């Protein structure tokens, strides 16, 4: 898979489901060629972000304690991720919800289930079109 060679390299994925994290790691690193970091909660993401300095953040919407939108708010308060593009991952794609996420400042929404073989392409496409 040719690597497009732009600034998109480091991707942070926040997801509470361990199995999804495992397959996402494959999809992002091995298939997509990104340097990926996986977090199991919003709190962990807030901790990890300043050191990792991601180019893009993927947020699962439905998570216990801190959900996707709340995590986004918390990340916006940190200097390292004040303007980092964010994509929401959700299993519920209703127009009203998508609009809500976009109005929060998300770059896009990727529906779940995602396909591990094409997730990276989808991210690159959204990133190149909009970021």
């Amino acid at each position: 898979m040719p690597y497009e060679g732009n600034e998109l390299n480091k991707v942070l994925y926040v997801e509470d489901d361990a199995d999804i994290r495992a397959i996402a790691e494959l999809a992002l690193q091995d298939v997509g060629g990104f340097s990926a970091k996986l977090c199991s909660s919003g709190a962990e993401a807030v901790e990890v972000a300043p050191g990792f300095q991601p180019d893009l953040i993927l947020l699962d919407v439905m998570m216990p304690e801190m959900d996707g939108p709340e995590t986004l708010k918390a990340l916006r308060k940190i200097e390292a991720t004040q303007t980092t593009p964010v994509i929401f991952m959700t299993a519920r794609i209703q127009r009203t919800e998508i609009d809500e996420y976009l109005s929060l400042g998300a770059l896009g929404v990727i529906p779940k289930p995602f396909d591990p073989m094409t997730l990276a392409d989808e991210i690159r496409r959204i990133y190149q079109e909009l970021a």
Partner: protein
Amino acid sequence: MTAAAHDQLQKRLKLLQDRFIERAQSDVETLGHFARQIEQQQLSRQDLVECYQLLHRMAGSAGTFGLPELGAAARSIENQLRTVVEAKARHAEWQDAPVALPADIAMQIHELTALVQKGTDETKPESTHAHPRLHQAENAYEGSHGMKVQVMALAHNTGYLSNLMADLQGYGFACELILLQESEAAIKSLNKRSGATILLCQDSDLADVLGFRSDHIEKNEHRRFPVVGIGRQNTFESLYHVAEQGATAYFSEPLDMPALAERIESLALERGSRPQGRVLIVDDDKELGERYCLVLNNAGMKTKLVSDPTKMMSALSAFEPDIVLMDVQLRAHSGVTLARMIRYEPRWLGLPIVYLSSEDNPETQLDALAKGADEFLVKPVTDEYLIRSVRIRCYRARQLSDLMNRDSLTGLLKHSLIKQEVERELARCRRSGHLSCVVMLDLDHFKKVNDTWGHGQGDIVIRTLAHLLRNRLRESDTIGRYGGEEFLVVLSDCPTEQAKELIDDIRARFSELVFTSGDDSFQVTMSAGIAAINDFPLASEAIEAADQALYERKQAGRNGVSVYQRQDENQDD
């Protein structure tokens, strides 16, 4: 990526898949526990939320691990639970009362187990035949019934369309989702098909899908594979762009599902290579007549040749053509006179008659037209011209008769015609001895739908049931709109037990469909009564019996199917 790296990746993916299947097995066990509570009406509010979340998680993940069917089924149940969960969240005072859910939902949850099992079989190629019974059970239904409309979604990324395909499956379509990068299987299966298949894709993939079609399907076959685009935008520019690329239809978010389903169905009917017309050819030159038959058959039309004009009238009643193609100069008879004879029968007053003639004198042609023919084809005609002119006349004739015979809202037969169909079926049963059923269907609490959501929504509900019926029944079955929200179906050569199973399946599917009105959504159920046509001396009595069974069903609780039981059963008969 190198081949070795690719293998390594596949191995790791497989490991993760296996792990997921183990988890899914334990998840469906937990869900099964909830299902039993639903059956006993003991599901607590907290369990409802847990069940809902578990389904949501499954819906969002199963596809990623190669179990798209499991994900789609979980999503369908999740959607059905959503309204209940949201309503309960608004009413804290109901906290302690158990939640009442239809038993149907419990059944659907139990069915998830089989889908996990199926996933296990599919991801282990060496054991594909380990559970033949499971696959057979799934296909058995298709064997007996189902002129299903085929829909194939093509995408670079399955996520978005998998949800849509699950919804479309709810409308009774046969749905497949195939990755563009793995399209070999799609090509093989498309090339084998005789009917139409609707290709569905997102507008961003449109160019690739159209490219795929032109690369792999011969140009003269493109008609059978119309491409329907789905997009997020509804501006002039986006529509123009989609049209310019060559999409046959386009729908934008938020999707109007009933409208989309309707369009898919009409495209499939219009584009399918099923017979596009019935042509009766009257020509005493047998060789020439047979040649016309062959040419028209090859173009997908059904033909019958009458070379002895004295048999013409009986052939008309038996074959019921859309048009008649008549040689004007037969040896012993005049085509012009034969045409006039046809018009004696009130039934054939509207039947188009086309002359095949070597007569190119306009005066003589006019004379023939006045005597009852509609048009002239001057011999010699090329094959192509013959096909085109006959096809277009068949099409017009069908349009006209549809306009007269079919209900404008649903496209189903009108009241008087469906009653006639019952009579005809009764006559056919007597002749050949097969068993047939008549079914009366009625939407439950339909007045409430109209009152709450408006008549526009009510019409959508009626049209949706009409689509579902057309999709799930065979072409040999006839469906009519009997009254406002009443439908009458004739199931030919179908015993009552089988009819009950079939109609109950349609009932279950219909009850799963979610209708949306603004931000609100609602669901509608239906009830049905079935009677065996053969049990009655008159068609009207069979209809009455089905109506009686329907009435009993409604009294005993709606959303179900009842079969008429004869009270005067006489063993000596």
